[in-house]
């Protein structure tokens, strides 16, 4: 009984993930959005090691985070434009 329940849960879990994986918005946008907290972690650690005063840390981290994200978006737009021009 317990094994059957586990198998059913596993099947439902796999199926739901398969459905989610089939949605382009889920796979594409979620992957991009998952980069935002990662960039925040990188910004935080970088500024934590470089910033002498911790009081200045939040603004410095936000500025670095915005810079990196902005650069990534700019790079993406640039590459897209190049692709559109030459495709």
């Amino acid at each position, binding site marked *: 009984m317990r094994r059957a329940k586990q198998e059913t849960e*596993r099947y439902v*879990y*796999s199926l739901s*993930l398969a459905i*989610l*994986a089939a949605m382009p918005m*889920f*796979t594409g946008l*979620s*992957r991009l959005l*998952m*980069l935002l*907290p*990662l960039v925040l*972690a*990188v910004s*935080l*650690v*970088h500024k*934590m*090691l470089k910033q*002498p*005063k*911790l*009081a*200045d840390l939040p603004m410095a981290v936000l500025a670095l985070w915005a810079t990196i994200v902005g650069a990534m978006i700019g790079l993406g737009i640039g590459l897209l434009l190049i692709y559109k021009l030459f495709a």
Partner: protein
Amino acid sequence: MAQRMTSRSGPERPNPAVIGLAAWAIPGLGHWLLGHRARGVILFVTIVATYWTGVFVGGVRYTVDPSGNMLWFVAQLGVGPQVVALWLATVRQLIPPAVPWPDADIAIIYAGIAGLLNMLVILDAIGRASGDEPADPAAEQKSL
């Protein structure tokens, strides 16, 4: 452990090797031992949260997988013994197989980046312990 004096700051500083090992064992512990306690806590939370976000998204067996992603696994080792423990648990089949998140490659990136960030933290802690960088925990406490 042997303590040594530095020529620059005067007071005793811990052995850089010990600080480096501590920073590897527990992210942020090196800074904590040097007196930068706020920094140590924030670094610990950031690196551990980043690593475990990757593990939770991708699952242990997929994320901590030297056979499939050797270089990323080496990067993960920077987080410390918890990676080795997870790997051993995987090898000994203590963790059941699970269906990974559809975008599980982002999980490996999270875990690997966490390890690389902790390597930076380790180097910074060793540098502070060696007297290469100014260590002024008192000023840091005042700035909070």
